[in-house]
């Protein structure tokens, strides 16, 4: 039993932390996160040079990582820095394709899965592939306005298939997310596409679980920052002649948050360790469920204990809080993953 990070991952983590802290100070972060293309292409290139995308790819595909704990290492740091770069799409794409050289070099991918009436469950999608052409609409595709290549899930006969389309050949309406970063509507109208996999259901499910793990780790990184902000605020903000951290009601609530954050950390570790095994779907669902709840609680409680300052745009907490809440809207929310767990129980 050993809960230490490997040396390689610790180095990656430190490199990323140093780079991101400098590259994405909060004012630059907000400047790029809310204006088209809603991220910073120059910094994306620098991240590629740092080898970020190699960390998401296994050695047998030419990368230097790709395991659960690599995903966690990378996304925890992205979360700490509130980095708006659409790395999530890159990770999901990396789980879906055979040739990843371009991806590792920094070609931007977005994976178009969700639709208006099928936000989380691929079984419900209606985008259709007929004769190597796609028709339909994908909604709130993360990274879409920044992407060079799209991977698209579509119904073909009874199967869920996967397709590749250059972003330039599709109509994309991009916008910022409320917590910053790029997303968009993607419209297919008899659009030519290249088949990646005719029966992609299993592969997609696994890729989405890896994405869910990444989002959990991102939340964990952000929660650690919020926790530090909160502790600092409780120690320094004075009301009624005392630091507000002297008030026992706030103390106990802050402690309950700290305990929940440790729970989040543990379930992320558990899910990461299960990545690549049969247990992964259950562990990923547990992680996304639990982290979804905890992240929302941390956001709400941290704001409440900060008072007014916590809901100002200028104070960074508000942006962390938004990210923590909105992470639950990506790749299945806490209830959706709870339903997966319930189905698992009912089947026993």
């Amino acid at each position, binding site marked *: 039993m050993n809960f230490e990070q490997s040396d390689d991952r610790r180095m990656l983590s430190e490199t990323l932390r140093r780079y991101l802290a400098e590259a994405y100070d909060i004012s630059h972060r907000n400047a790029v996160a809310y204006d088209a293309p809603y991220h910073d292409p120059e910094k994306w290139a620098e991240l590629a040079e740092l080898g970020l995308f190699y960390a998401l790819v296994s050695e047998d595909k030419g990368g230097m990582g790709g395991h659960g704990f690599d995903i966690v290492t990378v996304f925890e740091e992205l979360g700490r820095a509130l980095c708006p770069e659409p790395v999530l799409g890159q990770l999901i794409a990396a789980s879906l394709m055979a040739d990843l050289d371009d991806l590792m070099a920094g070609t931007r991918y977005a994976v178009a899965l*969700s639709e208006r009436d099928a936000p989380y469950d691929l079984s419900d999608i209606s985008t259709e592939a007929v004769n190597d052409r796609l028709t339909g609409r994908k909604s709130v595709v993360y990274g879409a306005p920044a992407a060079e290549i799209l991977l698209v899930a579509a119904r073909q006969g009874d199967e869920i298939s996967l397709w590749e389309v250059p972003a330039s050949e599709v109509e994309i309406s991009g916008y910022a*997310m409320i917590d910053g970063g790029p997303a968009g509507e993607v419209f297919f109208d008899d659009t030519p596409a290249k088949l990646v996999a005719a029966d992609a259901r299993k592969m997609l499910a696994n890729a989405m679980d890896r994405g869910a793990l990444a989002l959990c780790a991102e939340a964990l990184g952000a929660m650690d920052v919020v926790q530090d902000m909160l502790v600092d605020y409780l120690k320094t903000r004075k*009301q009624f002649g005392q630091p507000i951290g002297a008030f026992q009601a706030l103390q106990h609530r802050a402690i309950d948050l700290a305990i929940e954050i440790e729970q989040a950390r543990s379930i992320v570790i558990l899910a990461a360790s299960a990545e690549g095994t049969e247990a992964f779907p259950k562990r990923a669902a547990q992680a996304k469920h639990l982290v979804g709840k905890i992240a929302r609680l941390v956001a709400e409680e941290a704001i409440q204990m900060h008072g007014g300052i916590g809901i100002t745009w200028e104070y960074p907490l508000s942006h962390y809080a938004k990210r923590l*809440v*909105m992470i639950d809207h990506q790749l299945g929310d806490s209830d959706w993953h*709870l339903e997966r767990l319930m189905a698992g129980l009912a089947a026993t």
Partner: protein
Amino acid sequence: MDLSFSPRELAFQAEVRRFLQEALPPEIAERVAHGKGPTRDDMERWHAILNEKGWLSGNWPTTHGGCGWGPIEQHIFEEESALANAPRIVPFGLKMLAPVLMKFGTTAQQEEYLPRILDGRDWWCQGYSEPGAGSDLASLKTRAARDGDHYIVNGQKTWTTLGQYANRIFCLVRTATEGKPQAGISFLLIDLDTPGIEMRPIRLIEGGYEVNEVFFTDVRVPVANLVGEENEGWTIAKFLLGHERTNIAGTGFSVQALEKVKALGRTIQRGGKPLIQNPLFAARLAEVEAELDAMKITNLRMLSKAAQGGTLGAEPSMLKIKGTVIRQALNDLARRALGPAAAPFPSEELDNLAITPAEHAHAAADYFNNRKISIYGGSNEIQRNILAKEMLGR
């Protein structure tokens, strides 16, 4: 025991409904319903319409030309207004300053300011909180030093709601530094055109602007603008904090939010079925509905007591806490129901994409913005302290 309104109250309710249906411009109601308003213009138009009807001063006693509504009539008006998506009346002049002037102001002050509040010539805002004095209001530092017929005001106020539209501000200022912090506070009326005042907007979490910082540098305020006695402002502040009684629970807003979530549950499809048939969603919805239905009764119990002239103790603080928790739970449910569709940052261009039904495009923004309701007007923690003092005598 009788939970129903009296025939007179029912008739009043019907009259309010009829009036709202006829007089409330649909485009304003739509903006309010969709989270895009009210705009400044909407607020001013609605203010004028209500003034013309004579209903702007619902809470004013008839002796001051008001309608003299009791707590139940006020509740009916506020609830119906919320359900009709009318703009909420900007309370600073009508509901806060006016009662203060009636109780503590001189006849001259009443004659000068009350008509201007009604006809909209004055838009008042509030200067209470300071960066170092939020929950602990008595520690405020903005200084008003006497200089002949004037006070010289220096300091900073914050969280001044809609200050960007106001032409006047009423402030708590420090006129003495001896004794208990509460002892040296005065209540001052200040014209925002006076030299030395700077109003800076504060952008909020969801991207909008509604509160401001106000900076005072050697601002000369006539002594005639003092309300009540010098150093007796804390009495006024307490009077005001305890004054608002009828809309604390915000039941109208919550009922409206609940109906929106229900409609959402029937509209949104998940797995080929309406979301409202999903057990987890339905459970959360049914739970908050039961909470809200209970709180409506708690609210009516308080109103009934107030209408009979009973003194209210713990009830307003309890309603503030439960009311905000319920509204926030409804905002949370709406946001979650939308899934990824709640993620886009609201904008004009987005409307054309119809990612969500139009009335829900602001669901996430509303959720984030409404974190404020458990913070402002005495945070829920302060309310619990007040209640603890009453319940435990400490």
